[in-house]
């Protein structure tokens, strides 16, 4: 699964730390997601989507294997 959290973050001019605080997770989590090392739970994906006012599919998408 890939995501464009980094792009969304740039659009909203947020640092990893800002985003982490905004959705109440650690900065490690944001970093790991951006590096595609961690697949977030549905709950966390929904929180991120709500923060950026996008649908979950606009931010997270399946990768063709």
């Amino acid at each position, binding site marked *: 699964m890939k995501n464009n959290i980094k792009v969304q973050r740039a659009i909203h001019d947020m*640092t*990893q730390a800002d985003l*982490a605080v905004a959705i*109440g*997770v*650690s*900065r*490690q*989590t944001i*970093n*790991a997601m951006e*590096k595609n*090392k*961690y697949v*977030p*739970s549905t709950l*966390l994906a929904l929180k991120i989507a709500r923060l950026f006012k996008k649908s979950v599919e606009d931010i997270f998408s399946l990768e063709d294997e």
Partner: protein
Amino acid sequence: MKTNYLLPNKYKTIGWILFVLGIIIGIFLFFSDYESNALTIKVMSIHNDDAIFREENGFFKIIENSILDELAALAIIIGGLFVGFTKEKVEDEFIYKLRKDSLVWAIIFNYTILIFTIIFIYNFTFFDVLVFNMFTPLLFFIFRFNFLKHKSLNYEE
């Protein structure tokens, strides 16, 4: 992330202090061949089956023992549990996953080493392996968890 077995974050500092203190005393005892006589007091022994000091053998006897090694072991274990199982400042699903992964890794790594030492280490030297093995699962777990935690912080913006 809701977890019911983690202690509050404030226990982390005291955990580190106990853990490091215990390891220092432990290393000192190891190099002095456990022959320290410091803090010798009467203790309750549930069962004793010593080959040399036979007069102290039997069930539920009050015997004399230097409790420095017991204190060191307790400090390492209790300190280690505090360090490994207290909440992080921000506790979330990724940290939770790191902790679980580290725990699995530590158990597998520890027993792999133990298998190796069972095969290649014999006699009284193996006693040292047993002593170390009381603490290595916790040690590996703490090391791995903190290593991953710090590694997943680097590279920003």
